[in-house]
């Protein structure tokens, strides 16, 4: 145990990072009070879905939970926080939406913006360490409670899901730039070295938790996968994609299903022409979020592997005709929640999230790319 005296602590405080000193300087704040009247609507809305234990294959349960169950319990935190309007910081939190919009104008420019603003940033830039920590976390399939929260991202509200198996103390070592203040003792941070919104870290008092983007909340308007690319992943050009890995669906993991999976195999696409084709298709694909989607509900396309069996999973068609996609970006981030369904001609994600039906031309493009015929 090392010891200090209060005078030493006072002296040491005098030597802390100058950016903190400048940000706190008298005169940097004026006392205009602004009530966050919109905070209640935009604040974290925790939705706790208590479902049956998710076991070996959580996927089907997820989809079933979303489509058939209405056990979601919502609790909107009604807070009317008073917050000082900071003059100097670029990200003055005079308004929740403004603050978020400012941060999410361009994820690509986040690093530059962080340099300009006086909102302090932890020096840790170990994105590789964060990725490794994520890879080594506990298995999710032992979890029976999924927790969601809603965060304003630009003009939209995004739904995030808590990532289980991440220790609060361990997470503390991977806190990156400050992102957003939610309330007096709750705030959001980027993971260390990350400047996109795929993962965000929530600090509530002494507790840290990790959240992953799930979808934008759809009310009157929908969103496109292009919006997701730009606003969540900072992906604005095809050449920012390093590769796309297409693997057959593992929804049917019986011996029969595994045999088909082996037959199809996993393919990695890293030719720019392929990446550009894919990127062009997804730009305008409209996603309905968790809203019911009828236009791709019925199977519309037939292939060499098509059968009369109405159960496309047990017939193997849902393996032949579906690709689980992992899109690796140049900053190491992966988009790994999209699945291409050639049978229905759409994308879907776990939790009942689906896109509109693609055009025939778009389906043909993707089928040619992923070798589905």
């Amino acid at each position: 145990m090392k010891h200090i005296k209060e005078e030493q602590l006072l002296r040491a405080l005098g030597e802390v990072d100058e950016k903190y000193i400048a940000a706190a300087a008298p005169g940097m704040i004026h006392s205009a009070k602004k009530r966050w009247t919109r905070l209640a609507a935009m604040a974290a809305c925790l939705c706790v879905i208590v479902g049956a234990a998710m076991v070996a294959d959580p996927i089907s349960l997820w989809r079933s939970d979303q489509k058939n169950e209405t056990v979601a319990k919502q609790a909107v935190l009604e807070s009317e926080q008073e917050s000082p309007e900071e003059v100097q910081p670029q990200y003055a939190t005079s308004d929740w939406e403004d603050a978020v919009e400012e941060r999410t104008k361009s994820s690509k420019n986040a690093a530059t913006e962080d340099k300009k603003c006086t909102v302090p940033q932890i020096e840790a830039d170990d994105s590789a360490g964060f990725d490794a920590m994520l890879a080594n976390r506990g298995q999710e399939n032992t979890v029976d409670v999924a927790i969601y929260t809603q965060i304003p991202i630009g003009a939209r509200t995004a739904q995030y899901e808590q990532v289980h198996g991440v220790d609060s103390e361990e997470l503390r070592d991977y806190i990156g730039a400050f992102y957003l203040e939610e309330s007096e003792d709750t705030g959001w941070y980027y993971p260390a070295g990350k400047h996109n919104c795929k993962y965000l870290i929530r600090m509530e008092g002494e507790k840290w938790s990790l959240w992953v983007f799930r979808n934008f909340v759809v009310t009157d308007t929908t969103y496109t996968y292009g919006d997701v690319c730009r606003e969540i992943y900072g992906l604005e050009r095809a050449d920012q994609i390093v590769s796309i890995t297409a693997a057959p669906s593992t929804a049917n993991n019986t011996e029969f299903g595994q045999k088909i999976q082996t037959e199809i195999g996993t393919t990695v696409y890293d030719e720019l022409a392929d990446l550009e084709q894919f990127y062009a298709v997804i730009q305008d694909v409209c996603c309905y979020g968790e809203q019911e989607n009828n236009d791709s509900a019925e199977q519309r396309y037939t292939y060499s592997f098509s059968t009369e069996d109405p159960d496309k999973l047990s017939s193997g068609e849902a393996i032949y005709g579906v690709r689980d996609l992992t899109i690796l970006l140049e900053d190491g981030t992966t988009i790994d929640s999209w699945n291409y369904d050639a049978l229905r001609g759409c994308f879907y994600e776990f939790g009942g999230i689906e896109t509109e039906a693609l055009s025939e031309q778009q389906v043909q493009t993707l089928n040619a790319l992923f070798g589905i015929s």
Partner: protein
Amino acid sequence: MEDGEIIALYWARSESAIAETAGKYGAYCRSIAYHILCDAEDTEECVNDTYLHAWNAMPPQRPSRLSAFLGKITRNLSLDKYGYKMAAKRGGGQMPLVLDELLECIPVQGSVEQELEDRELVELLNHFLATLLPRNRNVFLRRYWYLNSVREIAADYGLGESNVKMILLRTREKLRRYLEKEGISL
């Protein structure tokens, strides 16, 4: 005048650097010194000494934030002066209160002890400050860096005094737990 231009004057050994510094940051430095010393004469002396130290430091130094650079000098000089003056008895100002409050941040003494390097402590403090929400961090530093009174902080941030006290209390408690976790005691 922009900070860069003032720094350039120091580097050019132009005496107008002092006048420009005094014009732009005199009040800032005076405020820091007065909150520690609570004495106009001593304050003025420390502020003038700040300019002298800045003159001697630039070159070779080229601070990225001139305000904080000067503020640190003023703060250190003021703490030194306070130490000399109050060796025999404690005076007014925020210092005695702040020192008492900071005592709460320091965990109880452990069995095996060794002196903690100042640099190590500063690193820990930087890490701790980075984990605070911006407003709470600013309130904390306004109290323990600038030694502002609770009333001043409350007025500047549009908060109630009790609210400021609560933020400070929670942050001190958080710092105490953090230091304890890092193996630091009084």
